[in-house]
């Protein structure tokens, strides 16, 4: 995942925002604790959702305590005392980063190839540990990567088929360790989140991919004129809305023990805002103004 899944701050309660940041900081700590300071560079808000969901569905509550951040000692952040959820998500971060680096080594431009080659030895080492500690995640992600490679060479690929491997991987990772109805709901939320991110990422990269001749599920779409770009944006928006509506339905199916507002915020406002930011470049919405008008 690539930074698309994050909360929308203006609509959050301060308390929720503090907790959300706390989850983020706790994940950062887990990466440092289990791996290395280098691993902390791969931290993103995407996996904070995975942490929040797992915490929300867990039987027991959790305690946050204020601790200093080693990178910004002036600031204190909330750190969750229990560690297992964050360790689990830290393994997931490392495993996804590893496959992302391999992907970059294979088919991106020179700069990203170089960067990937530089971090590869360290990431490979960390991945070895992660795969040992979390074999289930490793299996889910590696199967998805293999399936993705097989899918991409198919002629006449539907968007559903193209998005399926990564969505399924996230569904498995989100639901690991849960049973029954909770598992079903978490898996559905994971699937829809993964699908949303895949579609949005594909739309985001379409111009570059067309230039470089790289694979993109939307490569058949016409985005040459202003008019056709608008039509394309509208089409993608429809797909994203449909996906988001099911994600929200699945959230309502989940027996949420805590953090409902945070998850609702991420899945409703967070995803929508991200989608609008990306689709704005296809020019069907006005540029964001720097002024506020209050009526």
């Amino acid at each position, binding site marked *: 995942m690539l930074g698309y899944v994050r909360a929308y701050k203006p609509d959050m309660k301060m308390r929720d925002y503090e907790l959300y940041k706390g989850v983020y900081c706790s994940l950062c700590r887990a990466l440092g604790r289990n791996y290395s300071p280098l691993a902390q560079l791969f931290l993103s808000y995407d996996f904070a959702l995975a942490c929040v969901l797992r915490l929300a569905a867990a039987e027991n509550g959790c305690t946050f305590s204020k601790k200093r951040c080693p990178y910004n000692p002036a600031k204190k952040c909330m750190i969750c005392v229990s560690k297992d959820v964050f360790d689990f998500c830290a393994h997931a971060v490392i495993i996804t980063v590893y496959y992302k680096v391999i992907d970059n080594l294979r088919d991106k431009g020179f700069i990203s190839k170089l960067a990937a080659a530089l971090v590869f030895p360290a990431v490979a080492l960390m991945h070895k540990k992660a795969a040992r500690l979390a074999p289930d995640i490793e299996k889910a992600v590696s199967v998805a990567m293999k399936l993705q490679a097989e899918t991409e060479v198919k002629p006449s690929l539907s968007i*559903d088929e193209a998005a399926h491997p990564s969505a399924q991987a996230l569904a498995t990772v989100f639901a690991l360790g849960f049973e029954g109805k909770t598992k079903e709901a978490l898996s559905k939320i994971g699937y829809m989140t993964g*699908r949303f991110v895949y579609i949005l990422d594909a739309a985001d990269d379409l111009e570059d991919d067309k230039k470089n001749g790289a694979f993109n599920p939307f490569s058949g779409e016409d985005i040459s004129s202003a008019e056709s770009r608008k039509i394309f944006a509208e089409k993608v928006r429809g797909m994203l*809305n449909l996906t988001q509506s099911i994600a929200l339905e699945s959230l309502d199916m989940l027996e949420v023990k805590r953090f409902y507002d945070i998850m*609702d915020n991420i899945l409703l406002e967070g995803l929508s805002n991200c989608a609008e930011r990306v689709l704005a470049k296809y020019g069907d919405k006005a540029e964001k103004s720097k002024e506020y008008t209050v009526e």
Partner: protein
Amino acid sequence: MRNPYEVLGVPEGAPLDQVKAAYKILAQKYQNDPSFEAQRKMEEINAAYDSIVMNAGGAYKNSGYAQGANDYADIAAKIRSGRLDDAQILLDGIPEHQRDAQWYYLKGTVLQKRGWLEDAANNFATASRLDPSNNTYKMAYNRVINARSGGYRTERRAQTGRRSGDCGYLDCCCNLLCADACCECMGGDLISCC
């Protein structure tokens, strides 16, 4: 999916006339309500009604069609119990020239449950095009159209806070204490211990 008789509020195995009457009352209640909740309810009612009528259908339909209906009833039951792979195999086994509106609807339902939403939407569209008079198909497709336009978002925003932790109990206690204080000002007492 819930038991269709339960959805319509009639006893299990009730005669078709009673089912029809119950359906009519419920449909009148929900069909003109534009809210998302009512639409979903309506869809559930339609699906329940269709499944009961479909199961009872063999009696008065000609034999060829009844065979198809039984197949579909079996597939629908498999979908309900979550056996999507089995349902998909059965559906794909029906040759292309025999595929009717109901086939596309069931196929759409399987795809929807799998999360293949775009393909599902196309199947729902085909189903409602082939049989425009069927409410279940129309509802399924309308739901897709509504979701695509982002209609669910407005509705959800209007409901925010409904499941957040601040429940009414605290407010209720505060109100009681205030009422007690007021009573005490006037010389009375509502809560004797404070």
